């Protein structure tokens, strides 16, 4: 089972992509994109895990004792912030698309121009 977290990350990514491709609603599409992006959190955190390691926060533990990689945890933080920024823009665009076309179905608004 030592590969399970990686398999979970791959699964989340694939499910998210499938959701985006089959989506009939822009809000649903944005949520699927977030799901896809979540796979990178799982992957980052699992590659940084050290067996029997604790969180890299040395309060009450000796400095230098086994702990997970703080670099990937900091990267996950960046990842989450980027995800928030992207989802905000996509939702704003979805609202605009709805205002212009009256529809949130990606197929339904494909004909809009300008």
């Amino acid at each position: 089972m030592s590969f399970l977290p990686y398999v979970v990350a791959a699964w989340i990514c694939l499910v998210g992509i499938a959701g985006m491709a089959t989506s009939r609603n822009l809000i649903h599409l944005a949520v699927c994109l977030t799901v896809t992006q979540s796979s990178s959190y799982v992957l980052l955190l699992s590659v940084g895990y050290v067996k029997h390691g604790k969180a890299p926060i040395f309060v009450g533990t000796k400095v230098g004792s086994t702990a997970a990689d703080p670099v990937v945890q900091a990267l996950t933080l960046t990842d989450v912030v980027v995800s928030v920024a992207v989802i905000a823009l996509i939702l704003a665009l979805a609202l605009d698309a709805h205002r212009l076309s009256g529809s949130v179905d990606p197929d339904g608004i494909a004909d809009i121009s300008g």
Partner: protein
Amino acid sequence: MSRRMRMLVLGPALLGLGALFAWAIAGLPAFGDYRGPYGFVLNRVVVPLRHTTNVVMGTTFDVRGLDTMGEEFILYAALVGVTLLLRDETRSRQAERRTSRLDDDAVRLVGVAMIGGGLLVALWLMAFGYITPGGGFQGGVLAAGAVLLLYLVGSHRDYRPFRNEHFLDPLEAVGAGGYIVIGLAALVSGTAFLTNLFGLGTTGTLVSSGSIALLNWASAIAVSCAMVLLFAEFLETYVVPLEPEDAAS
């Protein structure tokens, strides 16, 4: 591309990607068998060198401080983008939709209690971010969430003073700009950008970790303001704020 056609392309594409993932996973070291040197090095050197017990925040605001500056401006750029997309000055007043107040007293009571609790936890996450788990980004999002609760359990009129952009816009600029100013202070003093120059203090106390504490607060302010303004932009697409004369009538 028709829907049917898209499904026909999607199936093989997902299978192919899944196969590539399987191949990649087969080549990865087993879960927990961490090899890279950086994590081990940072976990040993950050506490003695930077006097911060939260190595993740030490990494975020010191080892890769420049990167975090970019991250803060990603959020800033998203806020500007959303504001430009959603702010529609010509919106007709007929589109106005007034939401009714929440009637359930029990839900309102719990909600109001959660606003205070949420803000308190947010402040704790910000203030102790470089000592225990937390940090400016996490605390900022929670603070903005607590403010949003005010709209959910109260009304837009209760919420509106807390999203006053004449106050939040400059504060956002102070947070985002403060990060750069702290970085430039290091340049002026003759060292590299964002070098940790302020006194390192005592490990494990609020007076520790030098620049990290200040950068943490700068990002806490910037993120709180950015999130409150982001939420407000979305909210006000549907709930047009009452003009003062309407509120009085």
